[in-house]
């Protein structure tokens, strides 16, 4: 059967696109985020085989498929073996190389990985480290990126360092997407459509105009509208509540000072102090 050349190329290309699409599914998600050097090469090779196969009419399609099948199967087998044994992992993926330990650069390891001092400094600078004295530990990962642990005193302050109470925050739920209500997300946060309707009415917007709406674990709704010129009022409930608490506390202190009744004075002072404690307790939650 004689086909026009262009039809042959078109058919081959379509075949390749479908084939590659299925193969990508087969190889899994891991490829995208943490490809090892080996997997990287595999991907490129499969891609170029597919490219040649779709354009070069002198190559029989069958040969191309055999080649691709081998390039897919062997990495898959390797993957299986790697999951089973650490030795195979070390051979295929290589080991991470320690570059800086206890704040000292290990020159031997740099040489082993063909890293120059400039390379190392460049990688550190990309991590916002300009002074080697700030580094406690650095390791070259198998994918070629550098992971750095800064010295304790150079690490950013955490709430724990400051002994501040934390507000355990759950992931926010996206309840409106492209103007449509996502019922599953609403259910996950224990809310319903009626609640969403009242919240939207409070903000003065209709569901159709909302591009994206999220609810945090405190039940606070944040929306982004299609019309970017309209500003949505910032949520005020939490800061307002905190402010009212502070006002009550100040009032009680004032009463304590004003009254001549000794018993009432004590009562006011006691409660003013109690409210101050409560403010400290709930402030992380309400911020």
């Amino acid at each position, binding site marked *: 059967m004689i086909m026009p050349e262009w039809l042959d190329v078109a058919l081959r290309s379509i075949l390749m696109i479908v084939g590659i699409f299925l193969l990508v599914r087969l190889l899994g998600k891991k490829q995208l985020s943490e490809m090892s050097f080996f997997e990287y090469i595999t991907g490129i090779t499969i891609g170029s085989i597919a490219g040649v196969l779709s354009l070069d009419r002198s190559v029989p399609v069958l040969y191309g498929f055999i080649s691709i099948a081998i390039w897919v199967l062997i990495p898959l087998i390797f993957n299986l073996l790697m999951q089973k044994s650490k030795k195979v992992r070390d051979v295929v993926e290589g080991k991470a190389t320690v570059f800086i330990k206890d704040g000292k650069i290990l020159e031997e390891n740099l040489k082993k990985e063909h890293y120059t001092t400039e390379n190392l400094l460049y990688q550190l600078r990309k991590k916002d480290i300009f002074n080697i004295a700030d580094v406690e530990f650095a390791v070259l990962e198998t994918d070629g990126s550098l992971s750095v642990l800064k010295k304790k005193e150079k690490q950013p302050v955490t709430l724990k360092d400051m002994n501040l109470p934390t507000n355990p925050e759950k992931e926010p739920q996206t309840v409106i997407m492209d103007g449509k209500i996502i019922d599953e997300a609403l259910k996950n946060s224990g809310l319903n459509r009626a609640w969403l309707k009242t919240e939207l009415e409070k903000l003065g917007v209709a569901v159709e105009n909302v591009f994206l709406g999220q609810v945090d*674990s*405190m039940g606070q709704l944040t929306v982004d509208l299609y019309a970017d010129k309209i500003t949505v009022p910032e949520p005020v409930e939490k800061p307002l509540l905190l402010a009212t608490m502070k006002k009550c506390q100040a009032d009680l202190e004032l009463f304590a000072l*004003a009254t001549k009744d000794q018993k009432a004075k004590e009562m006011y002072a006691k409660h003013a102090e109690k*409210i101050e404690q409560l403010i400290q*307790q709930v402030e992380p939650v309400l911020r």
Partner: protein
Amino acid sequence: MTVASQVKQCLASLKSVKAGLETFAEQSVDAGTKQTLQHAARDFDRIISDIKKRISELEKEEPQYKGF
């Protein structure tokens, strides 16, 4: 403004705080947060009852300003 009316105003604020805390407690998904807020609301309840007692004392002293 009399002292009694000032205290009454404060009582209203206290009640609003209590209601606000309870609302957030109801809405929060996290159990720890819920508990913190519920405890705070309960503490405010105690303060409110004390302030109410004080208001009735004040009203006895100045009966002409009774009521709201």
